[in-house]
């Protein structure tokens, strides 16, 4: 753990803001810049910051690796099955217009779901990459 109190206190203060900002970027991507990819990277970076300043094992205690290993493919599957849902509701693959009561509502729902899938996968993968590197550098 880094002993520098400025870094530790700044991290503790900033971390909730970083994670909240990531959620804002995730769910506000329809209206402003951003979306699932950027949100996932910001969320993952916030968790990595926690792992860097405190020990990586405290990060993996808060966010278990087994959960990340489930979440990473789950995001891709959410995206792919949103596409399949388009077929099931009588449209084409990745056609969201048929998912809602009217085409615009369907598009909104579809974009929400696939951006969520993107965000979940990206955040899980970047944290997994960091933990893989961190485990190596500690000689385990």
């Amino acid at each position, binding site marked *: 753990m880094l002993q520098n109190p400025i870094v530790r206190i700044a991290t503790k203060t900033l971390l909730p803001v970083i994670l909240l900002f990531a959620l804002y970027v995730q769910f506000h991507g329809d209206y402003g*810049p951003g979306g699932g990819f950027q949100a996932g990277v910001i969320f993952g970076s916030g968790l990595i910051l926690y792992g860097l300043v405190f020990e990586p094992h405290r990060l993996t205690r808060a966010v278990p690796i087994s959960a990340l290993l489930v979440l990473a493919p789950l995001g891709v599957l959410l995206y792919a099955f949103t596409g399949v849902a388009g077929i099931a509701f009588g449209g084409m693959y990745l056609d969201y217009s048929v998912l809602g009561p009217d085409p615009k509502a369907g598009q909104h729902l579809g974009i929400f779901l696939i951006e969520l899938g993107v965000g979940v996968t990206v955040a899980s993968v970047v944290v997994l990459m960091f933990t893989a590197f961190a485990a190596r550098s500690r000689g385990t």
Partner: protein
Amino acid sequence: MTDLDPVIAAVLLALMAATAVAAAVRRNLFAVVIFASIYSLLSAAFFVVLDAVDVAFTEAAVGAGLSTVLMLATLALTGDQEDSTHHHRALALIVVVVTGAALIYGTSDMPAYGDPQAPVHQRTVDRYLEDSRTEIGVPNAVTSVLASYRGYDTLGEVTVIFTAGLGVLLLLGRPRRRAAR
């Protein structure tokens, strides 16, 4: 269309060039990684000048933030001094000069910044921009193109990221959960 501010663009590009040279002459890899991070942040600022805020956002988050962390994690595994015993300076200089000359030659064929006659604007862009509001109803046209019109491409990109993560885990080994408590 807003015109490119030549002063701001020139200052940013000059800073990027200075950062690149500074990174190239350093032997300490820790310094090189930090210079690469600064370079990414400057290029993110340049993307903002080019009105590409979504790209700037990604560059700042991935280039300046995440890849810096991963590079530093790599340095923790390999050591932070450059191994200069196997250098072929003349060969490296020739490769860099030829590649740079080819890239500069390539830009002479590119359309001017913001040119509405550019080939990329001739096919589907008009339709996306005009119909996105009525078809998709999402105010940010970038999101509607990425998530809906080009949904296949984005699905492919997510799969690529997932595969990259899988590759890292296979190469470095699955992180162990029993880390010292």
